[in-house]
Every structure is written in C-alpha cells, then in structure tokens.
C-alpha cells in the first residue's frame, strides 16, 4: 500500500515547511486557533492509523521478544529469537537471496532506465510520450497477478518462452525455469527488472529534461562525442534521480513478497527464499509467531538502514561533485 515511491515524501514535505516558517518569521497561519478544536482535525486520522498501523508495529516488537504459537499465551524470552536468527542458516540464505535480488530489482533497472531515458530524450515529442506511457505500464500492475502471468509464460511444457526458444532453434535452452535450482532466481529477477525499468526510465527522463541543453551544446562545440557528453554531463547531474531510484528499488527489493510468493513460494528448495517469504512460512504455516516477528523486524530495520546509508552516501557525493 505504501508503495515504494512514498518513501521520499516526508523529505519533500518538511522542506517547504521550514522555508515558509522562515519567510513568515515563525508566524502561524491565520487559520490556527490553539485549543482543543484543532485536535478534531487530527483525531480521526490518528485514531485509525494508531489502531491499525502504529499499535501493530509496537506489538510486533513485543511479539518478537516472545515464544508464541498463536494459541497459548506468549512466553517472554528476551532477545532469544534474534540470537537464534543469527545462527539460522535459512535466514542467511534468505538474506543472501535478497542481496542477489537487488541486482535485478535495482542495478539492472537503473542501468536500463538511464540508457533508455538518454535515447528517449532525443526522439520526437510524440514518440517520446507514447513510449513513456508504454514503458511505465508494468509499474502500475498488481505484482501478484504479474507473478501468475509470468509463471504461465515460463511454464516448461506449454509456456510461450520455451516455445519461442524452440522456434528459433535454441531448444536446448528451453529449461524448466522456475523449477531449476540455478535459474529460478534470475528468472524471477528478470520479471522484477521488467517491472521496474520503465519506472526508473521515467524518473531519469524527467531529470534529463531538467538539465540545461546549452551544457551539451558547449560540449559538442568542444568536440565531445554523445557518449562522452552523457558520461561527463548527464550522468553526474542525474545524481538526485539516481538517489531516488536507488532508494525506491532497494527498499522494494527488501519488501519483496507478492511477486516471489505467486511465482515460486520461495522454492525450489529455498532458492528464492527472501526474509518476507520466510516470515510468512514461519508465522502462518509453522505458527512460530515470535520468531516470525523477529524476521519481519529485521526487514524493517534493513529498510531504515538502507534509507540512512543512501542518504549519507549521496550527500557526500553531492559535496564532492560541487
């Protein structure tokens, strides 16, 4: 629900607030009447949000400190679940798979997106808008349904992908993609790349259009080839967009559940197991709710950590490039 793109909103919202307060000398709005009536505006939102999001988040922290099968009363075990987690081979397997998925959720879409945006910025407006609409299409789709569609496309017996491979004489490559221990992760990852590259492209395209064209003209006069001008002008100036794309796609990979759940359920033999799938199995199939909550919390902590690291790194890069 709070999809990836929402991650950057808090920053966009705080900036104008500060600017405005400065301009108006900290004066509050004429609409403000300090007193209980102000609370009427925030109460409905905070009651619902508190009851169905914030309290459950706090409760998840509590549950992660217990041993609980969902029926008998939970037993407090302190940090035992986290200690067990750091000795759990399957958990490391899930983290390792997630690291590999980052390649497909993040690195490939970023590279494809930036190249396509550079090409697309040079075509006519009509074609550009049409292709932009098209490339963005996968991003609005329900990933769960895409998972089901691609499971059929990958089907070893009658799936269209293998039919194409056989038709072009590559029958040897017609593998049972989702059943093969080695190929399943790239096969699922490819769907993630397919899902995200258009989104990355659209963000980069907006960024490229923001860049002053005279910079490129100057480079051309100096004899720079298009590729050089792209590498030395466009790419560095796209740092803000690169940050946004990195942030959104890395977080999306940590949150990944729907696509992998519908395509493989984490299999075969845990080859596509990621923390959220592991959480689902532990909690809703094995009734180990305390342990499952600990896994889920590590995922949330990773999201915060990635947010922090990317912001820090990019700030440093910003300073270097200025």
């Amino acid at each position, binding site marked *: 629900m709070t999809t990836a793109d929402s991650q950057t909103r808090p920053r966009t919202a705080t900036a104008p607030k500060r600017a405005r307060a400065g301009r108006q000398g900290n004066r509050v709005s004429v609409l403000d009447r300090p007193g209980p009536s102000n609370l009427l505006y925030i109460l409905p939102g905070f009651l619902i949000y508190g009851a169905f999001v914030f309290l459950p988040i706090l409760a998840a922290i509590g549950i992660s400190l217990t041993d609980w099968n969902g029926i008998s009363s939970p037993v407090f075990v302190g940090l035992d679940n986290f200690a067990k987690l750091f000795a759990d081979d399957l958990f490391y397997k899930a983290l390792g798979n997630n690291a590999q998925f980052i390649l497909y959720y993040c690195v490939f879409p970023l590279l494809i997106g930036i190249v396509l945006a550079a090409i697309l910025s040079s075509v006519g407006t009509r074609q550009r808008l049409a292709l932009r609409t098209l490339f963005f299409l996968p991003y609005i789709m329900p990933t769960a349904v895409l998972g089901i569609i691609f499971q059929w496309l990958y089907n070893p017996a009658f799936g269209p992908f293998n039919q194409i491979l056989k038709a072009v004489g590559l029958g040897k490559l017609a593998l049972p993609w989702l059943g093969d221990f080695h190929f399943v992760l790239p096969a699922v990852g490819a769907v993630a790349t397919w899902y995200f590259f258009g989104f990355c492209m659209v963000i980069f395209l907006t960024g490229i259009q923001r860049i002053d064209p005279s910079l490129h003209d100057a480079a051309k006069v100096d004899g720079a080839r298009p590729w050089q001008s*792209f590498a030395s002008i466009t790419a560095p100036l796209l740092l803000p967009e690169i940050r946004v794309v990195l942030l959104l796609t890395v977080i999306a990979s940590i949150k990944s559940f729907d696509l992998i759940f519908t395509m493989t359920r984490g299999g075969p033999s845990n080859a596509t197991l990621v923390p959220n799938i592991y959480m689902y199995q532990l909690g809703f199939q094995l009734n180990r709710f305390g342990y499952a909550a600990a896994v889920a919390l590590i995922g949330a902590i990773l999201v915060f950590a990635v947010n922090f690291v990317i912001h820090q790194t990019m700030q440093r890069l910003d300073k270097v490039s200025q």
Partner: protein
Amino acid sequence: MSRLTQAGAVLPSRIVLWLFALLTVVPFGLLILTSFKSQADLMKGAFVLPPYPHFENYVNAWVDGHFSTYFTNSVLVVVPVVAISTVIGILTGFAFAFLSFPFKKGAFVILTIGMMVPSEAFIIPLYYEMLNLRLINTYWALILPQVAMSIPFATIFMASTMRQIPAELLEAAVIDGATRQHVLWGIIVPLLRPAASSLALFLFIWTWNEFLIPLILVNDDALRTLPIGMLFFQGKYTVNTPVLTAGAVIVILPIVVVYLAFQRKFIEGLTAGAAK
C-alpha cells in the same frame, strides 16, 4: 532535443528502444491473445491466432471462476478506502499545514514511521487484532487497515500541497468573516482538486493491487478481492490456461483503463514527488 541524433548513434539506439518496447508489450499481447483461445488452439503454438475468438473464457472466469464476486469485492473495498483516506488526508493534512497542536513534530515522525515500515512487519499483530475484534472475514478487515496504511501518505501529500496556497488568500477569507470549516471546504478543497484527484488515483491503484492484507485477513472465498481470487483460481485451474488468462485480463483491465485515461497526471504526479 538532438543531442544524440548524430550519424551512427541513431540506428543502434533506436533498435534498443524498440527492443525494450517489444519486451514490454509481448507479455500483455500474449495474455490477451491466449484469453481468446480454446484449449485446442493453445496446442498450435503461443503466437498462432485462434480461428475465432473464444469469448466464453471470459464468461467462464466471470461465472464459474467467481471473478464476478472478486470484482464486486474489489470495488466494495477500493471505493471506501479511497474516499475515507482522501477525506482524512485533507483533515489531517490541514492540521499539519496550518494548525498548532501538542507534539506536532512527534506526530509527524510517527506518521513517517508507518510509511517506511513494510506491512509484512506488522501483519502478525494486525491479524490477531482483527481476530480479537471479530473482524476477520469481514469487509472491515480489508477496509480499516488499508485506510490506516494510506493515512501517512495522504496526510503528507495533502499538507505539502496546502502549504503552497498563498497565505494572503486565506487571510482575506478570514478577514471577510469566513469560518474555518468554510475556508477548508469552500476555498482550500476546491483549489486542491487536482492534487486530491492525483491522490485518489494513487490510492485507487495501490488498493486495487493490494495482496498481503486480503491474503492474510480474509480466508472466505466470498470476500476475496481480485488479486487473491486470481491466486486461488490458479490453484484450481492450472490446466485451463485460456480461462486463467481471461481472469488476469479482468483484473488488470480496470487499472489499464484508469492509467491510460490519467497517465499524464499519474506519471507526472509520481515523478514530481520523487524528484524533489
């Protein structure tokens, strides 16, 4: 606009462009094509056109596959979630933009926490909360949590647009004796119509696509929404690919229609937020 349009660079780059366009289109094309085939047509090859379109796949999915139920449920969940979240977003956003109240900064931090924590992290306590409230297997189990999950984004989105309204305009209204309710609903909200409709659009797509909440909080087939219904339908009908693909078209068609109708608003709304 002619930065790369130089001899030699044009053709290979156009080929790359059209290759990716093809990659995007082919899965959808195959999906639609297959949804009009019979089981026998399927054996003739993925790209072979059927002799005549088999619309009965859609009837089968709609009636026997219960997609009519799933579709109704999706609408019955999406409409209240979008409507309630947008109204609450306006109220709470108004408070954050213009009003003072205790612990305002802390309240803002609490909202952003809910935006960052993945719903997988708190689905277990949420499930037990719903169980204790006896709301499991009701529409409330689908509506209330999704409204709650939309509130942080809706609030922050609305607050940041409201702050862009010129203060003079609101001051003039107050001097004219307008009440606060009147300023909000009579002046601010009409000005915010473009932003509010963007918000409703995002919320519509996210709620329509939501998977985890209905997967966990509802296990009665009569209450399943489209993505979950599709999952269970696949379990029952793996062999009947044409009906499965017809079902997939039913799920994605409404979003594609909405997307194509509002694509400019949608893409620009998303990138404007992301670029700042």
